[in-house]
């Protein structure tokens, strides 16, 4: 990895290079940057989509200040943070565990792997749909199964405390295979000599995992951790379908809150202010990722 991409900067070479980049840059500029500039502009004004008579007066940093003073904003950050804490460790632990199991030579391993990946291939909207069906408190399959073990029915999506856990379970269901896949690929790339030497030296299974497997997994895990953190901020589709952010706002992740602000309350000024804050968070996250993994391109 990492070709030194310096080549003699002959003018015609560089021109071709610029020409090749141009379509991408132009398209992303128009569809990416231009709306962002508009968002920045709007965040400094008051703009209620449903009250055009108010105009769009300039209000400086007012929207931002109001956001920080707004308890709903902090609530939604709390929900998002809690969601991350619920899903990421579980996904990673399960993913690593399953990857270790899958790395052994198992009959039908290929088939099993493909089957295990299926949650990743399903549309998030559809995932929300299916789990909403299964989580139904009176008639859903899940409570039925639990009932046959004598467990009382749980109001998965209606109980204020439970709802976030229910959504987290779905997210784990969906993304654990992703982590498993990455870890599996990394484990399979470890040269066998390491393992053979360890076995000869009489190392325990745990020691092998801790001193050989884990170090090789570490870079990949960090990469995925960063990617998944950025993903949680982006999560919208599945949660929207499964709970719409409810009951109340107990599962309202940041992205759902911005959506509600912009398209239910029509308060575009605030929605854009929070969007810009999210943009900063994304830039920070991607900087970390790039610094670690793509020092130069």
């Amino acid at each position: 990895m990492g070709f030194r991409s310096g080549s003699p900067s002959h003018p015609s070479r560089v021109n071709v290079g610029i020409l090749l980049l141009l379509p991408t840059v132009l398209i992303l500029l128009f569809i990416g940057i231009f709306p962002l500039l508009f968002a920045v502009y709007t965040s400094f004004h008051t703009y209620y989509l449903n009250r055009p008579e108010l105009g769009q007066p300039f209000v400086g940093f007012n929207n931002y200040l109001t956001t920080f003073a707004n308890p709903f904003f902090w609530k939604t950050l709390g929900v998002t943070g809690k969601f991350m804490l619920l899903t990421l460790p579980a996904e990673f632990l399960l993913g690593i565990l399953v990857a270790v199991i899958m790395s052994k030579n198992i009959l039908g391993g290929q088939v099993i792997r493909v089957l295990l990946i299926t949650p990743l291939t399903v549309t998030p909207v559809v995932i929300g749909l299916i789990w909403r069906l299964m989580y139904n408190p009176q008639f859903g399959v899940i409570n039925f199964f639990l009932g046959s073990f004598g467990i009382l029915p749980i109001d998965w999506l209606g109980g204020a405390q439970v709802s976030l856990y229910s959504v987290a379970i779905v997210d784990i269901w969906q993304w654990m295979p992703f982590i498993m896949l990455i870890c599996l690929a990394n484990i399979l790339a470890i040269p066998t000599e390491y393992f053979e030497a360890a076995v000869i030296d009489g190392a325990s299974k745990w020691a092998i995992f801790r001193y050989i497997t884990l170090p090789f997994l570490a870079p990949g895990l960090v990469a995925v951790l960063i990617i998944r953190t950025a993903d949680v901020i982006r999560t919208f589709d599945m949660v929207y379908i499964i709970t719409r952010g409810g009951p109340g706002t107990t599962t309202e992740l940041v992205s759902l809150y911005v959506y509600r602000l912009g398209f239910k309350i029509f308060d575009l000024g605030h929605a854009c202010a929070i969007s810009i804050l999210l943009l900063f968070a994304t830039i920070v996250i991607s900087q970390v990722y790039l610094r670690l993994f793509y020092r130069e391109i």
Partner: protein
Amino acid sequence: MKKSHLNSLVAYIPLFVLVGLAIFPLYWMVATSLKPKIQTFAIPPVWVFKPTLIHYYTAIFEKQLARAFFNSLFVATLNALLSVFVGSLAAFSLARFNIRGKNHIWFWIITNRMLPPVVLVVPIFVVASYFKLLDTRLILILVYTTFNIPLATWIMVDFFRKIPRELDEAAMTDGCSHISAFFRIILPLSVPGLVTSSIFCFIFAWNEFLFALILTRSGARTMPVLASTFMTGYGILWGLMCATGTMIALPIIVFCLIISKYLVRGLTLGAIK
């Protein structure tokens, strides 16, 4: 790879449980789409039933499912083609040429990929409505490039970096220009990369929900949004929803199963040293 056959059932049992957990929800959706309405919420759940196509029939002929299917297909295909084409050009430029500010452009491209759609959806809605592009397939094709072009670029850059520079140079000493070397030598060699990025771009465009929800009404509505419309204020039309869900998910699942090799490669990109 550690070559020790796991004969013991100890490993198989958790794996089977996991596979069951992975597959069951999908099975349940397909089953519900084929069950008569009364049996959707039957207690105990009905496992053996006489399948009916009534939900599909209603969805296609009364609820615009065929149109939504076409919209999804049209938008996803065109967007994938556009994104991969433009992205490959950019990727080649980034992988081979030494342009000032290249790292900044790369950073900006990656950040676009990580950007929450919510950030863009409000301004794009206002801009699109100004240009009278709301509820068109075109706006979706354009908007989806914000995450698909970076994705295609990302995947192709990795592929191009693996192709030795000597190949370009050999071609150019034989009299090719850069562009010509690109089309004749490099591109054919990077077909796996093109396939992988096309697949992912297609899948992400096909699955996309938020932009489609905001930017379309009944004209250019895609299937994920159509599915959400079955959650009415009066209750959820489960049969219709599951039928739509099956139409959304099944083509992709089947497709992914067929090309699972490429899929694994693309998904693990950037996370393997």
